[in-house]
Each structure stands twice: as structure tokens, then as C-alpha cells.
């Protein structure tokens, strides 16, 4: 029973939306909408699981005084502070009695600490991409040379300066994006979609049972 019931539930829950999609009768759809609502609720619990797991992992590191445990303390502290601001304070702006506005603590920390830190991390990519491009784009063989030419055309074609120097370059860049790129992307997308469909069918018919765990 411990195995059969979850398998039957998984088969029913996965097949039902497919049936509802192809036979959209009122009664069938009502229950299907209920399933969608459950999905949203279950996904929220997954977030909760993530939080619990993060706390457990970091607490264990602090207890063991593992390497870099101080960062775990900071992680837990930051989590506690932001969670408190989020739960006990509001978000956005508060209009004061004199008509001026004040940012809520959560939004203030987000706007003036989290946001600049994230932007800084992301902008560092420009430096690493420049360095990596210098070292990686080499005319070693025909394929690498084609890749290099394509990359340079796109890079020039995507900047306003490109049109000033070579008026035809933006059109060539757009052509590369529209045809060779779209064709290759389509192959990747269709391949991934077929893989996902095959995997879904295996779950639907009970061949694949990741939800049962290792046992």
C-alpha cells in the first residue's frame, strides 16, 4: 500500500490535466482548476522546504566550526533580518503625515544593499567575458574561425557604432539571429521538449517514480 497508493495518485494527478485539456467539459475543468490550485500551494511548501534545508545546512556548519563557518553565520543572520522585515514590516513605501514617503525597511535593504550587490556581481561578468574572449576566440580550425567571425559580426551589429562604421552590419547580424541561430535554437528546443514529453509519459504510466525516493 505504501507504494501502490502514491503511484496511483501520481498517475491520476498527471493524467487528469491531459484529459481536461482535450475534453474541456465544465465538471472536468472544475476539478482540474482545483489541481492547479494545489500545485501553487505545494510549490509554496517547496520554498519552505528550501528554507528549512538552508537553515539546517548552515546551522550544522556553525556547530562543527567547519571551514568558512562565519559565512554561514552571516547567511543565517541576513535571513533572519530580511525575514523579520518581510513578516513584521511591509513592502514598498509608506506615506507619512506630512505627505512625504518613507521606504519600508525590507524595501530599503533590498534597494540599497541587495540590489547594488547583485548588480556589482553581474557587472563583473563584463571583465571576465572580455578576458575569456581574448583567450578563447582563436583561429585554431575552421569551426573555431566560423564561431569567431559570427561572434564579431554580432558584437559589431548589436552596437550603434557598428552601423556608423559598416552600414550593412546590423542587417547581417539580424540575419544570423533570425536564420542560423533560430534554426539551431529550434533544434535544441524540440529535442529538449521531446525528452521532457518522454519523461512525463514514463511518470504518467508509473515507469519512472522519482517521488518514491530511493526506496
Amino acid at each position, binding site marked *: 500500500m505504501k507504494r501502490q497508493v502514491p503511484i496511483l495518485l501520481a498517475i491520476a494527478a498527471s493524467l487528469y490535466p491531459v484529459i481536461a485539456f482535450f475534453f474541456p467539459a465544465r465538471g472536468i475543468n472544475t476539478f482540474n482548476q482545483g489541481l492547479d490550485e494545489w500545485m501553487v500551494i505545494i*510549490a509554496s511548501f517547496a520554498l519552505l522546504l528550501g528554507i528549512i534545508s538552508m537553515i539546517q545546512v548552515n546551522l550544522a556548519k556553525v556547530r562543527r566550526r567547519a571551514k568558512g563557518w562565519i559565512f554561514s553565520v552571516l547567511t543565517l543572520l541576513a535571513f533572519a533580518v530580511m525575514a523579520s522585515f518581510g513578516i513584521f514590516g511591509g513592502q514598498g513605501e509608506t506615506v507619512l503625515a506630512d505627505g512625504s514617503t518613507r521606504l519600508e525597511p525590507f524595501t530599503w535593504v533590498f534597494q540599497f544593499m541587495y540590489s547594488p550587490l547583485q548588480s556589482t556581481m553581474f557587472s563583473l561578468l563584463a571583465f571576465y567575458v572580455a578576458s575569456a574572449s581574448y583567450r578563447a576566440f582563436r583561429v585554431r580550425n575552421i569551426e573555431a574561425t566560423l564561431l569567431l567571425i559570427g561572434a564579431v559580426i554580432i558584437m559589431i551589429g548589436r552596437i*550603434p557604432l557598428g552601423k556608423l562604421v559598416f552600414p550593412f552590419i546590423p542587417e547581417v547580424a539580424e540575419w544570423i539571429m533570425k536564420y542560423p541561430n533560430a534554426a539551431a535554437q529550434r533544434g535544441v528546443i524540440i529535442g529538449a521538449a521531446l525528452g521532457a514529453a518522454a519523461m512525463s509519459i514514463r511518470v504518467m504510466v508509473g515507469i519512472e517514480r522519482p517521488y518514491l525516493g530511493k526506496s
Partner: protein
Amino acid sequence: MKWAQKLLLVDRRIIFLLVFLGALIPILSPIGLIVQVSPPVRAIFDRVERMQAGDAILLSFDYGPSDGPELDPMANAILRHCNKKGIKVLGISLFPLGGVDMAFARMADLTRDLGGQNGIDWVNLGYKDGGQAAMKLMGEDFTAVFPTDADGVPIEEIPLMQGIRNYGDLEMAISLATSVLGEWWINLVNAQFGIDVAVGSTAVSAPKYYAYVEAKQAIGVMGGMKGASEYEELVERAYPDLAGLSRTATVGMDVQSIVHLVIIFFIIFGNIMYVLTQRTRREGI
């Protein structure tokens, strides 16, 4: 040629320094390069332009602060465009790492710049976990996913939400997306519910959306800062009274132009040195 070998192994700090200068100089002294509009961006602009005053669109803030420099200008340009046309904007977020705050910030910009009113011109319904499940459920009923807006006001009490029950009551959905969320909007919302979908993405993600645009599954795509600057350009051309407002993406394109040139210079330079060292090796010098 030992000098070519040496130059091939140029210190990465020199590259960093030149990239830094390439970014800094255009910020201090903007060049004002003219942006050329590409068809996928014009298609989005034209679709919004064809709408009537009182129509509504959904704008999903599916990104966090790290993608803000590329996607914030898109959000600002779209919100300004909708405001000028009298189009209502339903803001939501399906991205956990700050999407809802990005929405708050952009809508505050709109209120400051053009006086858009919360609940009348725009509404921020907040964040909901569950990605595809939330998207699917909104096709049935928005209140099932967002019973209140982000400030806790019940949907029924929001003037903008009167007469809006699901995607069928909207003209289009625009996702400003990082990760896979933009693809879900196309694969699920456009495919199952038939609503027009457009995507604004970071530059690195933009190429994959061309497949969907070419297949007519998405109206268009705005790729990175360039896409944002193109939309800014279109909005300003159509509504010259917005000329005084900030155009961060257009200014950013000056920076991008110079940094791209620095990178291209290093690629060409590196390859010349590489060819010279290879020839030396072959000739046994």
C-alpha cells in the same frame, strides 16, 4: 618571435583596465549614438500602439536586481508607453529573488515621472510561487492566484481589476524574464490560452527567443540593453513630450559600444599574436 609569445600572454589586469576605461569614459562623457530599431522590438511596440485606451496588459517582472540594468529600462519604457496610450498595466512577478520589488520600484518611477495612479493606471499584484502552475491558474481566474494586490488590497476593491477575470480580458502579456520563465509564458500561456506574448530578456538569453518569434509563438523579443534602448527610442519618437525623461538603456549603449570595441580589438590582437607564434613554431625559429 618571443615578443609575440609575450604579448599573447598579456596580463588580464590590462584587459580589465581597458574595459573599465571603456565603460567609464562614455558614462562621464556620453557620445549620444543613434539607436537602430530591429524588427522584433518594433513588433512589440506596434502591438501596444494598436491597443485602445482602457485596454489592459499583463507585465510580469520575472527578474531580480542582477538583471535590472538590462530589464529595468524595458519596464520603464513599456510603462511610459502604456501610460501615454491609457492602457492599464497589471504587474505581477513569478521570480522569487526580488521580482516583486523590481515591480514596486518601476511603478514608483511611473508615478513620479508621469503621475500614474496605483489601482487605476497600474496595479502590483505581487509575487506568487509555482511558475507554470500559477500561469495556468491565471488562465482561469486571477483571484485564485492573487486574491489581493501586493499591499493586501482585495482584488474586488481595485478599480483597475473590474472586468478582468483571466487572460481573456487582456490584450497581451509581456514577460521581462530571466531564467526559463519567458519560455514558459510562450509555451504555456500563448499556446494554451492564445493570448499574445512578448518577452524582454537579457542579452545572453535573447537568441533562444528568436525561434519562438519566427514561429509566431511570440510577437517579439527585446534582447538586453540594446532591445531596451530600441523601445526607448520608439516611445520617444512617438511621444516627443517624454524627451526629458531618463533613457538609461540609450546611455548604456554608448558604454556597450566602446566595451564591445575593446573586446573586438583584443580578439583581433590575440589572433594576430597567435598566428605569429604558430608560424614561428612551425618554422622552428
